[in-house]
């Protein structure tokens, strides 16, 4: 194996060197061309294999065969390691199998390369939703919303924002959800369904004014949409504009007679209208009659709570109306019972005066009677028995007038 080195005649050596370098350069050029040819062959094969496997992967992804898709897309990535489309498809396949950590790794990698990629941001936001990372959710959804989408830009942005709103509502972040809804409203097009959906969401964040406006906008585009009518009725109802609510709810029930919820709400609304003595444009006799009716409804309510049969505060453990022994009331329950009994006594004392004639004689009794009615209805809420439509109506009137 040993090689006896030959010492050169250096003068000859020097003279040869430029020639040697020229020959080496030529050899390098030839080798370079040969390797270039090989490289082209290699790259063509790699691209072809990548394309073949990615096509299969995407087909399986579309068909919901996530496991196959993952294997195929991983193979495609072996041949085209930095292909973003393959990585995104692979991440989507992994998400399909709920392998969120793996998917996230791919998506983060993509996000680092393309922080403005809307799809990547949306997928990352969805993963963050699953993990409950609200800061990341907001960040990625906002990125997705303001990113440039490859197609259907407005639809995709709207979809992303709706997902964000849904998440915010689920975590009870109503203020943030409302902000998003207002932003969504600003970009809302002429689409009845979209307006209706917006109205529903405003209802969920309890922004009834905007909800009503959205439902109205929807109804302008599709007049007899029962869902929009119902929504508008509910929004108006929540706002305490019962006549408006009644109108929409009537139309909703007409449009969808089987809609029991709307029908029930309509009844409550109508009751609230009927039993409201303070509503404008009614005669004094009408008002007096309503006060008498309301007073009687409250009396029935107090009776159902036993406050009128046994008004003695010394027997708090007994509900005379039911005639049953109950456990001795303690704490706030005892206080409530005592208060109800007191209301019963007041009602009993006032009852003789609350007639149409009595009210005509003393119009101040209207307020006294209605105050007692409102207190009785509020006091007995949830304490005893089923609440009638009239009770609900009176409570709504009470709330409305308390607000005013």
């Amino acid at each position, binding site marked *: *194996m*040993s*090689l006896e*080195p*030959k*010492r*050169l005649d*250096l*003068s000859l*050596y*020097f*003279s040869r*060197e*430029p020639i*040697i*370098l020229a020959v*080496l350069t030529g*050899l*390098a050029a030839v*080798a*370079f061309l040969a*390797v*270039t040819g*090989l*490289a082209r062959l*290699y790259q063509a*094969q*790699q691209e072809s*294999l990548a394309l073949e*496997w990615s096509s*299969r992967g995407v087909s399986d992804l579309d068909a919901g065969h996530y496991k*196959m898709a993952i*294997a*195929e897309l*991983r*193979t495609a990535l*072996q*041949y085209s*390691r*930095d292909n973003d489309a393959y990585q995104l498809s692979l991440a989507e396949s992994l998400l399909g199998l709920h392998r969120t*950590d*793996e998917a*996230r*790794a*791919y998506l*983060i*990698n993509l996000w*680092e390369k393309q922080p403005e990629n809307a799809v990547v941001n949306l997928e990352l936001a969805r993963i963050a939703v699953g993990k409950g990372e609200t800061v990341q959710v907001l960040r990625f959804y906002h990125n997705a919303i303001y990113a440039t989408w490859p197609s259907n830009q407005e639809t995709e942005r709207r979809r992303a924002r709706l997902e964000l709103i849904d998440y915010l509502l689920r975590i009870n972040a109503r203020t943030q959800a409302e902000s998003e809804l207002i932003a969504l409203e600003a970009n809302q097009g002429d689409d009845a369904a979209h307006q209706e959906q917006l109205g529903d969401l405003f209802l969920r964040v309890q922004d009834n004014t905007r909800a009503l406006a959205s439902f109205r906008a929807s109804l302008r585009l599709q007049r007899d949409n029962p869902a929009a009518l119902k929504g508008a009725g509910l929004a108006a109802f929540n706002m305490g504009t019962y006549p408006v609510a009644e109108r929409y709810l009537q139309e909703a029930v007409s449009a969808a007679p089987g809609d029991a919820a709307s029908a029930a709400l309509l009844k409550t609304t109508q009751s609230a209208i009927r039993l409201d003595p303070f509503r404008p444009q009614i005669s004094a006799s009408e008002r007096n009659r309503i006060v008498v009716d309301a007073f009687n409804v409250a009396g029935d309510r107090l009776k159902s709570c036993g406050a009128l049969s046994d008004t003695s505060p010394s027997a708090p453990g007994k509900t005379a109306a039911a005639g049953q022994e109950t456990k001795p009331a303690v704490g706030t329950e005892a206080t409530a019972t005592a208060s109800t009994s007191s209301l019963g006594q007041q009602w009993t004392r006032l009852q003789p005066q609350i007639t149409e004639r009595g009210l005509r004689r003393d119009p101040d009794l209207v307020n006294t009677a209605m105050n007692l009615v409102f207190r009785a209805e509020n006091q007995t809420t949830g304490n005893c028995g089923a609440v009638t439509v009239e009770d609900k109506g009176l409570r709504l009137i009470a709330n409305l007038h308390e607000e005013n």
Partner: protein
Amino acid sequence: MRRIELSALFHTQSGVPVEQQTTTTVGEFEPASISAPAAPASGVLAFFREDRFFLILSVFIGIFSGMAVVCFRYAIDWCSIYVLGSGAALTPWRLIAAPAVAGLVIAVLTIHVFPEARGSGVNQTKAALYIYNGYIPLKTAVGKFITSALAIGSGHSLGPEDPSLQIGACLASALGRKLKLSRDHMRLIAPVGAAAGLAAAFNAPISAVLFVIEEVIGRWTAGILGSVVLSAVSSVVVVRWFMGSESLFRIPPVELKRPSELIAYAILGIVGGLASVAFSGGIAVLRPWCRGLRRSTQYFQPAIAGLLIGCIAVLGAPQVMGAGYGYIDEAMHGQFTWQFMAILGLLKIVATLLSFVSGTPGGMFAPTLFIGAMFGAAVGGAEHALLPHLSWSPGAYALVGMGVLFAGFLRAPMTSVFMVLEVSGNYSIIVPVIVANTFAYVISRALQPEPIFDTLSRQDGLELPSMEEQREESILRVEDAMHSPPDLVLDADDTIERIAKLTADAVEDVLLVRLHPSGWSSITREEIQEMTKDGKGSERLESIMAGGGQIPYLHPDHSLDTALRYVDRWPLVPVVNRANLRELDGVITQHDVLERYRDFGGE
């Protein structure tokens, strides 16, 4: 030719500091340099002095090595596609049969056609440097290319770096032989090619340069470094031209969030150190055992190894097949659970042991990185599971893990740090890398004193210098051997008569003389007596010594090797203070030097 001129000074001029004389460093280049023609060459020819020509040649070596490595990488991928298949889900029978059948073919080729293709490319390059005067047969490169491509492509758990290194070294050696380079350049040309091959395989020139310096050449000199860097950089340029500039792995962002996390990395270093010991211990035990089996079994050893690796793949860990860079990438991006990564690390050790000890050609760099990455990410994951407040980045732990195994198994501590930095392009990870690597290196050294490359060379019957020993070798200095300055130091201003009186009771035969304004000389008592007899008693010593008699002096920090060059010619050499050249720190004699060397050998 500055060296030759200084060399001449060495012989003619004394009384000057040793540094000025010893710029004629006694190194590998000296004979060649001296042999170069001193006659001035002008124009183009002057440009092509052998040293410069060697540098230019290094660029060509890099270019050719780079292209060879590109072809080698293509060959591995083609083998993989045609032998294992390009499919997503490989059939079990193919997973088992492909490496087994390839093993049979490889065995026949290595036994009958390319026997040099077996073994470590690093050691073969070292052997070329230290034993064979740079000679590596070109046939070795061909054999390594074919057999390694087939082995790695068919799924044997080996990597392409070591064969790439050897292919580069072989090409360089062949080129050097064709050009009939001098012996010194021939010796160096193999490491230059090795650096090019390794740089092309890693796509990381700095790591390759460091590795070759650290593990093959073992010393730093400007001449070697320039050639090695040029060849490495040019080969990387070629590889990037053909294969793109992406690094081997997509590195996720990594950072050290809290200094307390260094403890976590230290634990990783300990685990990595133990894994390194297990891995190198396995090779140390199993390789000689396999080689000791009957010769006929060597036809089947690679096939059996392939069969077993195929079984591991079929049983759920196909990731252990081949170099596994794709899976390192996936581990870095958190696509495996830490438990699975720990299992993969263990299985990869088993698979690599099987492939390597069976004599299948291929390298251990990639498996080392794989094992390190898996253990790194697994340790990080386990730590995060136990202590959730630790920031958990699988990429960071995998990266550090790779460095840890490199430091612990390959025992290349400096390369291990720079490799991680170069691959990650992130300097914020340097502290965790250094901490973890130090632990791994120390543990590996303590439990497995012999580095893996030394083990392999010993098993191959070669006595190559141990780079680790060289790195850590104590250097004896003049201060270790010198003795106290004599009580009597003569002054050149004194008269001979006075000097004779002073030296009347002296026991030393040789006395030092302090010259004016600087410099030292020596005089014997006999010379003083003769001068007195000759009637020169009233003359000053300086006037008698004028124009000659200066002796060289040393400083306490000079190496004893340096002192050795002078003590045979001057019986007493002064050791003077660097801050005050007239102040004597001690004196040194040939006897002192030899005595110190003798004691050192005993130590």
